[in-house]
Every structure is written in structure tokens, then in C-alpha cells.
């Protein structure tokens, strides 16, 4: 809620300055002397930003060949628990133009056509959520077989087209 409050204030500042639109605002009034510094205000991007990053990516080393002919011969490296999923941090920062009631789906089964349009299987989603705040963050568990993810942000406003972006792993 703090973030929401901060951005409401920011929005008022923009209006007061006669700015707005898609401009990024980073300057904030200095606090009175002796008061603690406020939490830095993030800028609201001109375009809604989607970010998906692996939480703890491992460094790929040289490929190790396995000579095991049966599972009895396999030796598991210490500490490896054969996990079949990875953790990703999803972050969405909405532009002011997109700052309205919306619904986010993050799905794994989709196609992108040559004209840039998407076809998404919404039964393949890993995340479905309403969005009301400007910022959204979530940790997503993605199984290793997932070749990519697509995020689709649909607006309840009939005049607004959905924002769609994807990541190929």
C-alpha cells in the first residue's frame, strides 16, 4: 500500500507541474533538515515494463559427460536434489497510461505469429491475477520443460488493447 500511496502522490506532482503523459519523474522535494530521507521514489516508465529473471541462476560450467550405464552407477553431485524447476522473479511496472484495472496471465503455451500477434492457451497459465497497483512482483516456479513464458495484461477498458510480451528460455 505504501507504494500505491507514493505513486498517487507522484501522480499529483506530475499534474501540478503540468507534466504527465509518459514522462518519467525522478526528482522529489528535499525533506526538511533533520528528518530521515524518504524511501526513494521509483520513476513510472513511459511504457509498461515486464521483467522476468531467474532468481538464482547457476553458472554453466564445462559439460560433464556421464559414463553411467545404469542408475546404480550414477553418482549425484553433493547438494544436487534433482530439482526439476527453477524460480523466477516477475516484475511489472505499469506506465501511467496503463494504470487502470487490469488482469495479468502468465502462461507457458503460446505461439507468436509473424505479424507479432500472439495466440495464448490460457489453460497453461502459471499465474492469474488482478492488477490494481502500479508495481507487481511475484516469484514464479517454472518447471524445466517450459520453453518460454508469455505475459498478457488485459484491461477492463474496452478501448485498450492487451499488452503482451514473452520470454524464451
Amino acid at each position, binding site marked *: 500500500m505504501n507504494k500505491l500511496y507514493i505513486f498517487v502522490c507522484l501522480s499529483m506532482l506530475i499534474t501540478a507541474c503540468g507534466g504527465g503523459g509518459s514522462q518519467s519523474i525522478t526528482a522529489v522535494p528535499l525533506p526538511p533538515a533533520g528528518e530521515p530521507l524518504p524511501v526513494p521514489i521509483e520513476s513510472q516508465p513511459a511504457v509498461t515494463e515486464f521483467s522476468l529473471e531467474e532468481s538464482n541462476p547457476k553458472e554453466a560450467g564445462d559439460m560433464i559427460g556421464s559414463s553411467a550405464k545404469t542408475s*546404480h552407477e550414477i*553418482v*549425484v553431485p553433493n547438494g544436487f536434489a*534433482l530439482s526439476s524447476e527453477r524460480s523466477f522473479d516477475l516484475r511489472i511496472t505499469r506506465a501511467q497510461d496503463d494504470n487502470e484495472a487490469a*488482469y495479468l496471465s502468465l502462461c507457458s503455451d503460446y505461439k507468436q505469429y509473424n505479424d507479432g500477434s500472439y495466440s495464448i492457451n490460457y489453460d*497453461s497459465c502459471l499465474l492469474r491475477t488482478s492488477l*490494481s497497483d502500479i508495481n507487481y512482483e511475484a516469484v514464479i516456479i517454472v518447471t524445466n520443460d*517450459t520453453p518460454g513464458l508469455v505475459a*498478457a495484461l488485459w484491461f*477492463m477498458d474496452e478501448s485498450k488493447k492487451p499488452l503482451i510480451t514473452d520470454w524464451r528460455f
Partner: protein
Amino acid sequence: MKKSNVYVRSYYGTNFDVNSLSQVLIEYKSGYLCRSAKQVNRFIFTLLFSLGSSLQVAAQSLVDSDLNNQSLYASGYITAGARTTVGGNVQSATAVTLAANAIVAGTVEAGAATTLGADAGVVGYIEAGSTVTLGVAAIVNGFIQAGTTATIGASAVIDGSVVTGTTATFDALVEVSGDVLAGTTVTVGAGSIFHGNVDAGTTTTIGAGVQIDGILTANSSLVPPPPLLVTNQEVLITSMQIALKDLGTGTELVSTTFGVNNETLEAGIYSTIDYLTITGGKTLTLDGKGVDGTWIFNIANYLSFAIDAKVILLNVTDNSTIIWNVMGDKAGSAGYTQLGAGAETTGFILAKGFVQTGANTVIEGIANDCGGAYSATNFIEFGADSVVGQTGCTNGMAASISQTLADAPVAATLDFGDAPASYASLVDDDGARHSTENNTIFMGSGVDAEFDSYQFPLSDDVTDGNDDEDGVAFVTGLEVNNAAVLELIASTSAFVDAWIDFDGNGVFGSDEKIADAQAVIQGNNTLFYAVPEWAEVGSTWARFRVSSIGGLEPTGSFSDGEVEDHQVDITELNVSIQYYPSASEWATIAFEDNWPSIGDYDFNDLVINYRISEYTLNGEVIRVKLEGQIAAVGALHHNGFAFHLPGILRSTIDENAIRYTINDLPQNISPLEAGRNQAIFIITNDVWDWVSPGENCNYYRTEAGCGSDIQMVFSMTLPMANAIPSAQMPEFPYDPFLFATEGYDHSLAFGLPPGRAYEIHLPDKAPTEAFRTDFFGRRDDRSEPQNGRYFVSTNGMPWAINVGVEMQYSLEYMDVIYAYPLFSSFIANQGLVDADWYILENANTNNIFSN
């Protein structure tokens, strides 16, 4: 090269009998019309055909025609690139050309010329209406009959006889096992060997060092038979193509979207109103489900497999059939088929137009059948290093197509919804249904037909393997008292009527209609609607009907269009849902139940498919849904299965509000394990209470030939009495585990039956409070609780593995490494390599269980 080419000879079980050919020739000269029974048939067929082709089209089947036993037929020419192999017979109404080292394991019949490049081979005979030309060191295991000339390259080998209308010319070092008869001239190069007679109508020219075991005769009185007649089969093939198309539209595949990604189709009739293309590098998996099946693809325009596109067979039986019927009946269509380099397909291609492939392509038959291709009007060209039919294959194209037509059932012509009975789906309930005959109005990629509704929990999409409930996407969630959006794909301009059972009372009320004769256009349509405040949270159903007029009721029949029923989930306002592995797919946990001893590593002693849905409101988890099914039990031990929520207290769960169903029947017993502090959900205390092995089988769905339907499906909704802050929730997939059933022995390591005190968890997942920690360290177990190391062996191997798909697990006793060869590489590289080792594309399909 020639001498080492035993490969060619090995196919040919019975070499042509030289003496019988001589006899035939003598009989012919004595006034017999025909040389063999085969040619009698051909003559009669030709005669009848000339009397009235339309009558013959109706009566003639492929097996009764000259196309029988042909692996390749073209009304135009046929060429095979260098090193290409053809498993069956080849027939062209014009010319046949084999490039160097190409091999035909059957016979070659050409209306005009036949040409073999150097080192090329034909296992059967060659009959050509005009010339036969053999390159250097070519091999023919049967006889050669040429309407005009035969020109045999140096060092060629012919195991049969050579008969030509005019000249026969042999280069040096040729070897012929049978007789030679030329209408005019025989010319023999130096060093050639002839084991039979050599007869020339006028002249013989014999080079130095030639060996002739029989009699050399110039001015011979023997008369070569007339040139071979290869009948043009366009009319017959076209009639077969029409007959296949008349089997019905089946499922319509949309040309622009089908084949763009990897696809899977179960047996059935499929059609396109335009082309069918598989994109480069993509796969089309034909899933036979272990029963005899037929795939018929009726294609209006052309068929194209791009570079490295591949057809993969999964659990397809030897008696199954695949037919690619390239009609070319779309206006302006040539009806051709093309395979890009490296493309692979299976089955029989019936094409109106040409068939053309790049290098390294494959057209295989199922099991021992030869793959095949017939071009009704044009040529067939294979690139270099291609394969048509496996070595040793037997022809089956004509017979298979004829059998398919004979066996074809009456096609269904109505599309039904599949919502539960209360919504009225069956014919007897006047369920919503639409005629599919000549219908072009549908949602999504197509519409299929059934004889009646497959009501939930059945589904026609499961039954026929084709998901035609694909025209509606709920692009936003359905939240009580909130706006919502859906996308609907229409095949053409039409009208939509739609309902959502918001109050969950099992019927579509008039106040639940969200679209009333709503006009839609071809392609994507976005529909906005509102979920009322009186909507009930939970699972419910939606029905969509598209038609040419709109204004339909939720029941009753209509003459065009489609009905789609969708199960939807209504949630509270502003609820987030996270899924593992996704909203509709299964993850799989598979156990070895010999712990603490190492087992056979087939990881099928207990296999559970499951998914998790986690509902969050304002940063707190308010509800969890666990769904799953028992996929396999490959052990005689009695085991239970449960989920544990690590770090969550039992008291957190609102036990009275839990909803638990098994096979869609509510369960009266709380799954929340009693007497514990931890939140543990018992799916079942003994999996054998719910499943049974097949007849003459020891286990449930792990042995070859022991397939069965899934016998136990569960669904558990777990509301929280106290919402759990998201940060405190355990990560997916929580902690699913196996435990021993009370009262049953499990391992000699324990003496008495260990019961609930025995658990097997995923590696490094701590056991629950019910576990007896002094079990650790027995036999092969090397758990180190003090170091957070659990349920691993000396080698660090686990007794349970978890993967993100509905895994096709190993056959009984089959080490998982033989089913999934990348398993060891995945482990050796700590998951940085071959992380998706468990997907079907990485399986050795011979070693996985198929239902």
C-alpha cells in the same frame, strides 16, 4: 562396388527362373497372347477399363488394380536421388530414373524408359515400354524387358534374362545369368559373361574374351514380346481420393495455425479447407493409444513438411493406417506434396499432383508396410539419401487404403457440448447440438462430430484425441462482482449465444446469459461481460453456441455452428492464483518404494500425476487446491500417498470447509491427518484400495499389455482458517510423499510392518512428525538430518523423482536411464544440461509404458 553389393541381392528370395522365361517366350511365339497370369489380369483390366471407365471407377478397388503392390506410382516420371532406397515396387506411366547407388527393393515398371545410375540396383525385375539403361556396375536381380533397347553399363550384373524389342548392348565385363533375346542386334563388350542363350533377330557382335554358356544365335526365330503397357491410373486414384474424402470432414485443421508448433493427434479423420503444413523442425505426433487406428488427412490444397519436420508415432499398433489424401480440389490447387530436406513422415500419400522431396527425407510405412506415394497426374521426385519404406518391407498401400474404405464406419454428423447432465448435453435431454454437415461456422480451429455427448467427466476431446473446445479463451479470471474479458475465435462472421452458470445451480438461467445473438467476425473477437455479485465462488460451467442466426437457447439442435462447454473457476475479487505446473497440466512424482534399500530404479512403484493451485488475497494464501490421479502402481507393497505443507500447522486449515472428491464423488472422511500438529493431507492410506491390475497383470499400468484407464482421480480444496502470509508458504511442489499402509510388511529392514512411521520423500525433503527418525541410515539410506540431507543413497540417488509434466514412466523393471537416456547427464551436470530430460521427446519410447 558391384560385387560387394550383397545388400541388393539379399532382398530377393527367388531369382527369376531362366528356364521358365524361355518357356514363356516359346509359348508366346506359338500364339499365346500373354506371358503370365499377371499380364492376363492386366490385359483384362485394360480391356474392361476401355469399355467404360466410370463403371470401373465404381467397381474397381485398388487391390484389384495394377496399383496393387505398388509402393510408388506416378502418372508422370519417377526419379530417385543418389543413394535413395525404395522398399517396395515402383511404377510410372512414363519414365523411372534411379541416380547412382539408388536402390529399389521391389520391381520397376515404366511406361517408357528406365534408367539406373552407376551402382544403382533393382531387386526385382525391370519392365520398360521403351529403353532400359543401366549405369556402370548397376545390379538387377530380376529380368529386364525393354520395349526397344537395353544398354547395359560396364560391370553391371543381371541375375535374370534380358529381352529387348530392338537392340541389347552390353559394355565390358557385364554378367547375365539368364537368356538374352533382342529383336535385332546384340552387342557384347569384352570380358562379359552370359550363362544362358544369346538370341538376336539379325546381328550379334561379340567382344574379346566373352563367355557364353548357352547358344549364341544370330537371325534367331524367337520374337520378343510387345512393349509393356502401364496403365495411367489417374481415374482410379482420383476415385479413391474422393471415396476417402467422402468418409467425412472429421476434424477441421486450420491451415494457418496447425503445424506451427509441435502437435499431437489421435486417430481419426482430419481435413483442411486449404493446405496442411508442418513447420520446419516441428513434430506431428500421432498417438495411437496402443489400439488399431486410422488417420486420414483430407487436404484440399497441398501437403508440405518443411525442413526437418517430422511425424512421430506414439503407441501406434502394427495394424494402424495413415493416409495423406492430398485432394487438390481447392480452386486452382495443384494438389502437390513436398517434403523439405530431412523431413520424415509415415504412411501413404495419395496426391493429385506431384510428390517431391529434398535430400534425406523419409516416408516410412507402419511396421513392415512400405510407405508409399501415388501421384494421380504428375511426377514423383526423391532427393538424395532418402528412404521410402524400410528394408524388407512388404507393400500395403493399395490394400490398406481399400481396407480403410471397407472398414469405415458411418460418420457422426453432430457436435455436442460435454457439460454435466444437469446442463442438458445428451440427445435424450435435447442437449445443445449442431450439424457438422457442410458446416463452415465454428469456434477455434475446428469442430468435430459425435453420435452423442461425452458428458463430463468424459469429454469428446479426450475420446477422439481432438480438442475442438478451443474457440474460447478466458483471458481474465472470473471474479465476483468484477468485469471480465474473453476472446472468441470465429471461423467466419456469425452470432454467439453464451451462458455462465454463475450461481452454480447446474443450469444455465436466463439471467446468466452473457452474450445474446452477439455478432462476431472472422478471427479474434473480444467480449466484455460482468460477473455478478451473486456469483458463487468455485468451479462452474459456461456454454458457447455459435450459429448463422443467433438467439439460440442453451439446449436444442441447430443446422450449423458449434457448441463449446467450458469449465471455469469463479474466485473472490482480487484473488491471485498460482499454479504448479500450470492450470491444466500435470506434474509427476514417481517413487521407488524399496527404501531404505536400493531398488531397480524403474521409478514406477507409485506414480502420481498432480497439480497445485494456490489462491492468494492481499498477500495471503487463503486456499489451496490439490488435484491428481494415480498413474501407476508397479509394486506389490501397500503404500499410501499424502501431501505435507512444510511449516504450516494443522490448525491453520479450515478442516470443516475442506472439499474432497475421489472420482468426482465427495468423500466423508477428512483428508487432514488427525493427531498431528503439521498440516498433512492423506490422499489415500492404500493406493491398492483404488486401483487394480489388468487381467493377467501383476501391477497397475506398468507392464506391456497391461493398460487401463485411470482408476482414481482426486481433487481437494483446502481453505485456510487463518490466511497464510505468502512468504511463509512452502515452495511448489510442497512436500508430496509416500508412506506405508498400516499392517502390511514393507522391508526386512524394519521387522514389523512400519506403517505410518515409514515415509519416502523427495531428496532433501524432511519427513513429517509421523516418521521414525531411527529408520534413517538403515540399509542403503544415507540421510544426514543434521545437514538437511534426506532420502538419498550412498551415491546420492533418491527414492523419488519429481518432474513438471505428465511423465511417460518406465516399463516395469526398466531402469529409468533406459527410458530417458539423458537422466544421467542431467544429474552429472547438476541440472544445467538436459534439464528437460523427462519430456517425451527425450524418451526411448520402446522402454516407456504405453497405455
